[in-house]
C-alpha cells in the first residue's frame, strides 16, 4: 500500500497527460496542482473531487469520515442518474466530534462501516478521508482493511483529504483508489468482443442514456462506466473490456492509461458533445474494438448508424435556422470541447462572436480558427466588465456557459443558458445537440430577457453603474489612444503568467534579447510558466505572433482570408 504522498507524486507523473509530458523534471515533481492563492475565491478541494468522481457509482455506500462539514454541505448534490440502486444518494458520515478529534476517530469509523453493512448490505463501502482525521492521524487504510476482512466485503479507502490540493487532483486520487482496490478484483460472467469501458463519464442528467441506445443498437456492450450509473461489480471486472473511451479529458486520465498499461486495454479521448464529435467517437470505438478482434463489419454498421443519426439531427436543427438568423452567441464552455459545439451551433445558423479557450488544446484553437475565422474572439480570461462590454456592444444575444459565469451574466443583464454540469438538460449525443438548439431557441425568445436587459424605465440609463463602467472603460481606451506611449505601456503590462506575475513586456524583452523560440527558453529567462504552467499556451502564442508583427501584418491577414 503506497503512501498518500507517493500516490500524489505518481499522479503528477502521469505520462498520459499532454500537459505533463511537456514539463521538465523539476516541474513534474512540483506537480500539476496550482497552489491555491491564499485569499482567492477557490473551487472545490481534493475530497470534493474524489467524491464527485466516485459518487455516481450507484450501489455502494459512500461514507465520509470527518466532521459534519464535508458531507453535511454536499450530500446528494450532483445530478447523476441511476438506473437501479439509490444508496449512493444517502448521506453517510461519521460526523466526528471533539472527543474523536482528541482520542482518534478510527473506532467510530469502523463501527460506522459495520452499521452500514448490517443495515444496508451494499456490495461495497467507499470510505472518504477528510482533512481532520487525516491530520489527527486516523489510518483509514488500516480501518478499511480490518473491516473488509472482518465483514467479508470490500471496504475501499479513498485517500484524498481536502488539503492535498484542488478538485482535479481529487478526481485522479479517486481513480487511484479504484485502480488499487477495485479494478481487476472480480471477473465478469461472460465477455464479448464488443465490451467497452467508458471512463470519466458521470451520467449527469442521464446524458449517457442518450448515447447508450446507439451502442446497444450496434451490439456494443458498456462493460463498465466509470463512474456514471456504475455498479461496484462492473468496475471490479472492468479490466476485461476490449477498449475504452476516455471522456472529460483530464479528470481520470490516470485510470485509462494505467488500465492500458496493466491490462492492455487501448483507449482514446473522445466526446459526445456535438454531432461531429459523437460520430468521431462512435467510429473510434468501432475501430478500437475491431483492432481488438471484433468483426470488421462493425465499422460498416457504425457508419450506417452515424449517417442516419447525423441526418436526423441536422433535419431537426434545420427549422431553427430562420429563427436564429442574425443571432449572436458567446460561448464560454469550460469542460465541453469548444469547436465541436461551435460547428453544431453554426450549422443551426447562429453566429458565434466569441468562445472561451481556457481548457482547449492548441489543436482545438486551430480548429476554432478554422471554423470561426481568424477574427474569432478567443477568450482566455474575460473579466465581467469585458463580458458586459461585449454584450452591450450588441455583439452577443446570448451567452452559453457553465454555472460559474451565470451570475455575472445575469447581473450584467445578459441572456444566458447553462451548458455545464449543473444543468437539468442532457446535451450529449445527437439528440442532445438538438436539445441544446431547442434550449437556445427558448432562451433567445424568452420575453423575460427584455426586462433583464433594460434598465428601469424611469432610470437615466446614461447614469447607471453599467454606463459609468463603460464610460470609464471608454475613457481609459481614449486616453491610451491619445498617448501611444501609455498605450504601449498598458499593452506590455498585461499579465501573462499569474503565478509568477510576469507581464507581456518582460517576456517580449526576453525574447528579443535572447532570440528565444521556445517556452522553455522564456521560462529560463523570465520564470514565466514556472508556476502552474497554464500560461505556456499564451507564451506559445506570443512566440508565434512576434515574427509576424515584425515582418508585416498585412500579408498575413490577407493570407488568412
Amino acid at each position, binding site marked *: 500500500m503506497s503512501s498518500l504522498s507517493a500516490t500524489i507524486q505518481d499522479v503528477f507523473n502521469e505520462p498520459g497527460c499532454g500537459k505533463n509530458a511537456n514539463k521538465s523534471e523539476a516541474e513534474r515533481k512540483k506537480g500539476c496542482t496550482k497552489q491555491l492563492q491564499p485569499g482567492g475565491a477557490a473551487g472545490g478541494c481534493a475530497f470534493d473531487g474524489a467524491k464527485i468522481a466516485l459518487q455516481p457509482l450507484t450501489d455502494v455506500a459512500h461514507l465520509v469520515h470527518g466532521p459534519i462539514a464535508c458531507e453535511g454541505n454536499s450530500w446528494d448534490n450532483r*445530478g447523476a442518474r441511476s438506473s437501479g440502486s*439509490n444508496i449512493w444518494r444517502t448521506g453517510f458520515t461519521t460526523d466526528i466530534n471533539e472527543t474523536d478529534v482528541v482520542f482518534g476517530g478510527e473506532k467510530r469509523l469502523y463501527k460506522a462501516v459495520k452499521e452500514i453493512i448490517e443495515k444496508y448490505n451494499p456490495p461495497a463501502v467507499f470510505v472518504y478521508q477528510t482533512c481532520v482525521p487525516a491530520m489527527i492521524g486516523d489510518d483509514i487504510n488500516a480501518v478499511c482493511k480490518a473491516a473488509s476482512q472482518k465483514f467479508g466485503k470490500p471496504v475501499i479507502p479513498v485517500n484524498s483529504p481536502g488539503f492535498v490540493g484542488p478538485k482535479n487532483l481529487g478526481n485522479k486520487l479517486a481513480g487511484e483508489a479504484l485502480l488499487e482496490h477495485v479494478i481487476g478484483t472480480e471477473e465478469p460472467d461472460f465477455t464479448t468482443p464488443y465490451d467497452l469501458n467508458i471512463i470519466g463519464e458521470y451520467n449527469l442528467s442521464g446524458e449517457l442514456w442518450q448515447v447508450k441506445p446507439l451502442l446497444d443498437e450496434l451490439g456494443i456492450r458498456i462493460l463498465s462506466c466509470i463512474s456514471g450509473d456504475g455498479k461496484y461489480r462492473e468496475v471490479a471486472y472492468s479490466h476485461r473490456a476490449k477498449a475504452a473511451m476516455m471522456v472529460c479529458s483530464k479528470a481520470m486520465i490516470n485510470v485509462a492509461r494505467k488500465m492500458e498499461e496493466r491490462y492492455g486495454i487501448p483507449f482514446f479521448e473522445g466526446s459526445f458533445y456535438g454531432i461531429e464529435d459523437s460520430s468521431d467517437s462512435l467510429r473510434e470505438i468501432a475501430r478500437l474494438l475491431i483492432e481488438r478482434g471484433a468483426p470488421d463489419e462493425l465499422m460498416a454498421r457504425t457508419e450506417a448508424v452515424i449517417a442516419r443519426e447525423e441526418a436526423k439531427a441536422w433535419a431537426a436543427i434545420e427549422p431553427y435556422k430562420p429563427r436564429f438568423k442574425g443571432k449572436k452567441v458567446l460561448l464560454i464552455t469550460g469542460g465541453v470541447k469548444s469547436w465541436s459545439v461551435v460547428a453544431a451551433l453554426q450549422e443551426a445558423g447562429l453566429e458565434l462572436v466569441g468562445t472561451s479557450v481556457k481548457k482547449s488544446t492548441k489543436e482545438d484553437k486551430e480548429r476554432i480558427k478554422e471554423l470561426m475565422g481568424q477574427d474569432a474572439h478567443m477568450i482566455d480570461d474575460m473579466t465581467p466588465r469585458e463580458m458586459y462590454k461585449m454584450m452591450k456592444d450588441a455583439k452577443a444575444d446570448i451567452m452559453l456557459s457553465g454555472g460559474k459565469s451565470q451570475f455575472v451574466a445575469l447581473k450584467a443583464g445578459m441572456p444566458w443558458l447553462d451548458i455545464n454540469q449543473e444543468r437539468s438538460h442532457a446535451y450529449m449525443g445527437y439528440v442532445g445537440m438538438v436539445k441544446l438548439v431547442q434550449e437556445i431557441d427558448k432562451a433567445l425568445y424568452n420575453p423575460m430577457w427584455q426586462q*433583464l436587459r433594460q434598465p*428601469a424605465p424611469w432610470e437615466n440609463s446614461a447614469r447607471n453603474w453599467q454606463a459609468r463602467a463603460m464610460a470609464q472603460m471608454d475613457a481609459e481606451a481614449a486616453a491610451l489612444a491619445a498617448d501611444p506611449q501609455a498605450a504601449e505601456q498598458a499593452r506590455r503590462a498585461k499579465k501573462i503568467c499569474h503565478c509568477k506575475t510576469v507581464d507581456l513586456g518582460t517576456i517580449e524583452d526576453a525574447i528579443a534579447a535572447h532570440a528565444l523560440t521556445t517556452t522553455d527558453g522564456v521560462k529560463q529567462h523570465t520564470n514565466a510558466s514556472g508556476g502552474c504552467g497554464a500560461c505556456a499556451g499564451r507564451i506559445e502564442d506570443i512566440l508565434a505572433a512576434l515574427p509576424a508583427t515584425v515582418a508585416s501584418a498585412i500579408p498575413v491577414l490577407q493570407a488568412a482570408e
Partner: protein
Amino acid sequence: MTQNADHVLDHFELFRGPEYQQMLANKKKMFENPRDPAEVERIREWAKTPEYREKNFAREALTVNPAKACQPLGAVFAAVGFEATLPFVHGSQGCVAYYRSHLSRHFKEPSSCVSSSMTEDAAVFGGLNNMIDGLANTYSMYKPKMIAVSTTCMAEVIGDDLNAFIKTSKEKGSVPAEFDVPFAHTPAFVGSHVTGYDNALKGILEHFWDGKAGTAPKLERQPNDKVNVIGGFDGYTVGNTREIRRILNLMGIEHTILADNSEVFDTPTDGEFRMYDGGTTLEDAANAIHAKATVSMQQYCTEKTLPFIAAHGQEVVGLNHPVGVSGTDEFIMALSRITGKEIPEELSRERGRLVDAMADSSAHIHGKKFAIYGDPDLCLGLAGFLLELGAEPTHVLATNGTKQWAEKVQALFDSSPFGQNCHVYPGKDLWHMRSLLFTEPVDFLIGNTYGKYLERDTGTPLIRIGFPIFDRHHHHRYPVWGYQGGMNVLVWILDKIFDEIDKNTNVPAKTDYSFDIIR
C-alpha cells in the same frame, strides 16, 4: 371499529371503517337505484370529450360552479375599510351571514356586519320599519362612527328607496340627523361583488363630497398634492395595502388610501376585541376630494367610482391589478408623473431583485401553459405577469368578466408572441373551465379554493391565487402588488412547479432517479 369514546376518530378516519363502508354500500344498493359502474365510467369519460364540451358551452340558462359572488359582499368589503364603520345590509339576514362567513373564512378574522333582517311581511309591506329599527339598534348596540347601507336582492325587488328610508329613520330618531349613513343600491342580480364594491365606495364618497344627501353643503374641491389610492375588491388587501403604503411613503407622497380594510382584517391578538380597527378616517374620506389624483388598482372594481371622482376635477388612473415588473412599473411611474416625485433608489433595487429572481428561475416557467380564472382585474394582472415570464395564459376566464373586459384581455394576448394561442372566456363558469382543461390541457391552473375540484378531476395542479382562499391560511398577509408582491407570486408559481416535478419523480426505484435536491 365504530366510534368509541376512548379513541374518538375524526371524519377522515371514522367513515373508512368497515361498518360504515358496509352501511354506505347497502344504502347505495338498496335505496339509490345504482347504475352500472361501467356506465358511470363511460359518462365520466364522455364528459371529458370535445363533444361534451360543445354541449357544455351551449348552455344558456344554467350556471355551474360560478366564479363570482354578489354585490353586497363587495359593498361590505368596501364599507369596513372606513373608520369605525359598520356595514348595514338592508334585506334578509341570511345573505349577510354569507358575507360574514365568506370574509371570515378567507381572512381568518371576525367580520362584523348587520342586516335589517327583513322577513315575509317586510317583503310585502316594504322594509321601512326594518330600516328604522335596524339603524336604531345598530347605532345603540355597536356604537359605530358611520353606518354604510347596502342592499340585498329582496329589498331591491320590492324597490325600497334607501335615500328616503334613511331620511325617515333619521326623522324618527334612529340615529342623529348629522350621523353619517351613506348608502348604495347593490342588487345581486346585477354584476358581481366587484360591482358592489364600486357602488358602495361611490356611495360613501358621494355622501361626503356631494352634501350628505342634501343635509350639508357640497364640498368645494381645493386641490392639494395628495394622491388617493383605491385597492378594489382584493383578497390580498392586508398585504397589498401595507405594501402600497410603504411604496407611497418611500416616494414621499402624501396619500389617502380609500376603503383601507387592511387593519380590520388583520387585528392583533392582545386581549382586546376590536370590532373596528384602522380604516380610512371619515375626515380623510371627505378630504379625498381635494387630492390631485386617484389611482385605482383595479379598474373593473371602480367603473363608476372613477368617473365620479374624475367629474370632481381630479385626474384618475385605472390599473388592472398590476402584478410583475411591467405592471408595477406602470403603477410607480404613474405615481411619479402625477406627483413629480422621483422614484427612489430603494424601489429601483427592489425592481432589480424581482428581475433577478425572474432570470434565475424563468427557465422553469418559460413555455408552460396556464389557465387562470378569477375577478377581471386579477386575470389581467396575472396574465400580464405570465406573458412577461414567457408562459402562456392559455385559458383566461372570469364569470364576472364583460365583453369589454374580454377585448382588453385579447389586446394583452395580441401584444405578446406568447399570447397567440390564448383565449379569453367572459361570463363562463368553472364547469366550462372543466371542459377546457380536459380538451385543451394546460400545465397549471391559477384560481381560488374552488379550483381544487378542477385540480382533482382534471389533474391540473392548482396554484391558489384569488378570492376566496379557504383551505390555505394566511396568504392574504402577503402582497402581490409592488415588486415584492411580484416576487411572492413568482415564488408561489415556482413552488408548485417544483412540487410537481418532485411528485413526478418520487416513486422509489422507478422514477426517483430524477428526485433531485437541486432544482
